[in-house]
């Protein structure tokens, strides 16, 4: 898709930085280690990056990887497990995560449970620090419980060389991560309306770079990019789309979206907008504020909401407010969380007259020919 706006000269170096950062996480980790930093791998979902940051350590996103054929992790997981878990374990078993001092994860799905246990058995030298999450998030006692879990995680991190948790340092980290989240939300709002200057792959790279780069390097660059985008006129996209799922970061798949003429106007991806939708509030107890940030999450298939209509309503609103013509669910193979909710979600989308499509994906996939055909047909249908 040829952009209809002229790219400012100063934008491309920024986009190159985001692309290099997103596509070369190992280089980011090496740089952190060279600076003497202790890095902590952050598995999905809702990792408390601010806590890790406040303790002088580097949070390092761990969402599996593409381009890897799992062989070592096959000794732990039967084939019917999502590639995110299998490839993450594979990376660790191959030594590709050497340098990390620990890995943390929130155990919110039935694949993360055994992943934590297989990890502990297979990698005693790379501790898995589990973070238990309450589902009764609306209750005060859930907040109290989750705060205690964060405190426990902080103690484990201190044992591994993190600085003792200082409330002021955590307050500072909450503020800078809030700013990073706000900048990413702003970018998402701008990216689809700049005449194709930010195609789907570039959009993903800008957001994914946040997983690996230090926030001190990421935020100023994203802020500059947003300013450049804001200075350009609005150009409504021809085929705006909302994308939902756990992640959609395969370059081949993202090019297929672009090839079909789609602009990603909004997303409901666990790796992207779901992770930065909610900020930490102001509170005199910053650890409580961090707990509040998790407990304030809602409309996520992993999380319990007493109102069963809340999530479908949220997605319908997201599609409508973003001006999207439809929704595509990028369904990770063997993700029972997304599989279980899809029928009800589709029924609501149908009821609201919102066209939808499901594309199956797996991080080990290399050929997205079928997805490309489906997207082109979907575009024709919407066109």
């Amino acid at each position, binding site marked *: 898709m040829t952009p209809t706006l002229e790219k400012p000269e100063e934008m491309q170096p920024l986009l190159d930085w985001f692309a290099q950062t997103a596509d070369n996480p190992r280089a980011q980790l090496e740089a952190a280690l060279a600076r003497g930093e202790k890095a902590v791998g952050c598995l999905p979902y809702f990792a408390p990056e601010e806590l890790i940051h406040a303790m002088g350590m580097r949070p390092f996103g761990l969402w599996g990887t593409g381009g890897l054929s799992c062989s070592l992790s096959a*000794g*732990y*997981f*039967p084939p*019917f*497990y999502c590639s995110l878990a299998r490839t993450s374990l594979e990376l660790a078993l191959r030594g590709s995560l050497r340098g990390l001092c620990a890995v943390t994860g929130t*155990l*919110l*799905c*039935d*694949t993360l*449970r*055994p*992943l*934590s*246990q*297989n990890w*502990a*058995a*297979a990698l005693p030298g790379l501790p*898995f620090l*589990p973070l*238990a*999450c*309450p*589902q*009764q998030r609306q*209750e005060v*006692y*859930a907040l*109290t*419980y989750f705060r*205690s*879990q964060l405190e*426990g995680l902080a103690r484990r991190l201190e044992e591994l060389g993190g600085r003792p948790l200082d409330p002021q340092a955590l307050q500072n980290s909450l503020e800078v991560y809030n700013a990073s989240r706000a900048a990413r939300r702003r970018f998402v709002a701008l990216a689809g309306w700049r005449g194709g200057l930010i195609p789907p792959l570039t959009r993903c790279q800008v957001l994914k770079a946040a997983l690996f780069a230090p926030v001190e390097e990421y935020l100023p660059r994203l802020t500059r990019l947003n300013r450049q985008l804001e200075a350009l006129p609005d150009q409504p996209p021809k085929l705006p789309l909302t994308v939902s799922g756990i992640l959609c970061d395969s370059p081949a798949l993202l090019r297929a979206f672009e090839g079909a003429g789609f602009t990603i106007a909004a997303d409901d991806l666990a790796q992207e907008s779901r992770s930065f939708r909610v900020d930490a509030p102001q509170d005199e107890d910053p650890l409580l504020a961090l707990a509040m940030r998790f407990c304030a999450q809602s409309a996520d*298939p*992993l999380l*319990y909401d*007493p109102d*069963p*209509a809340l999530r479908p309503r949220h997605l319908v609103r997201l599609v409508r407010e973003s001006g999207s013509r439809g929704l595509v669910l990028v369904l990770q*193979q*063997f993700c*029972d*969380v997304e*599989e*279980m*909710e*899809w*029928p*009800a979600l*589709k029924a609501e989308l149908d009821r609201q007259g919102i066209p939808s499509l499901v594309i199956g994906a797996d991080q080990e996939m290399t050929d997205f020919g079928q997805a490309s055909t489906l997207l082109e047909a979907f575009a024709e249908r919407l066109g």
Partner: protein
Amino acid sequence: MDSFSLPARQKLLDFGAESSRLAWAAKDRGEPVGWMSTKFPAEIPAALGLVTCCPESQAAALASAGQGGPLCSAADGLGFCADLCSYSRIGLALAAGCQEGGSRIPLPDFLLCCNNICCNMLQWYQNLARTLDIPLFLLDIPYTAQNEPDGELIGYLRAQFSTLTRRLSAFVGRPWQEEAFSRACRGAVDSALAWQEVGELLKDPLCPWDGMELFDYMPVLVSRRCDPRTAGLLRELGRELAALPQAERPARARLMLEGTPCWPHLRQVLAPLRQANIRITADTITPSLGFVYQDLDGLLRAYCGTINGSTLAKGLADRARLCRERGVDGILMHLNRSCRPWSGVLPQLGRGLAGEGWAVVSFDGDQADPGGFAGAQYATRVQGLLEMLEKGKEAGA
């Protein structure tokens, strides 16, 4: 006389079957009937006099009767893909009215959900709540990857217990009575102890009956463990089993069954074992329905300690202990396609048990979807297990 013709067996089977008749009778009277997760604290609805049914038990029974396939297909037609747990698919198909001839248990008016055994349980029940437009009462037991629940978790659970009992009490319009709750707890603990006593009879090398028979009584433990009559019936069964003549010779081999039974193909699974005089003398499911505790905190701790609720290391230690107590020679591991949290640790668990000297083989199957099982593969694996056991005996000799 054998174990299948014991009077106590029939009494227990009838007692278990009575649950669904009571549920239908309650429904006919206009009383609310609930669906309850297997490992939801049954003491709570028992204290409030609430009638409940277990859709997982229902799914197992339907799968055994050959109806798992059609109901899973019906769920597929509703948009629920085959990757999902077959118990939940069957439950969703039933909720959508897909059972010809009516369901064995009435559709629920409320839901009691506990996610101690898996995260999918909550999603399943949320779907049921949405489909049927009924209230869901959740006891959230998050997975902590710890061997034992800590004080913070017990505090969270205790707070939920208060809220839950208050809300349920308001829903049913009956006050919460501590004495009724204590009675339910005493019944549950007594049942658990009696159940343990029955299971321990399998330690006898000349025990004449097979451990798979314990699964016939599971509906009683699932649905009626708080009933004060249950322990007595179980002890009666224990006495009658103990009085049976011993087997003429020990079994050729004693196995532990790891995993939920492959209900749609159970005959095919058990036949080669019986032909070879191999007995199941241990399994991971039947002991798990006995919750023993002294007080509320103890109850909450007990319900945290489910099969998928603990660590792999503890799971390995518990299984090794069970295998030693029951004189197990080998482990037959069902890689249950439907149970992600469980099957995800089985390869490592198998290596752990093999490392302690047991012969271990696994086979692919599913707890309720008949499509997940390959008879030829199973036959090969059992043959392999027999050969390993024979080699082990020769090496020992």
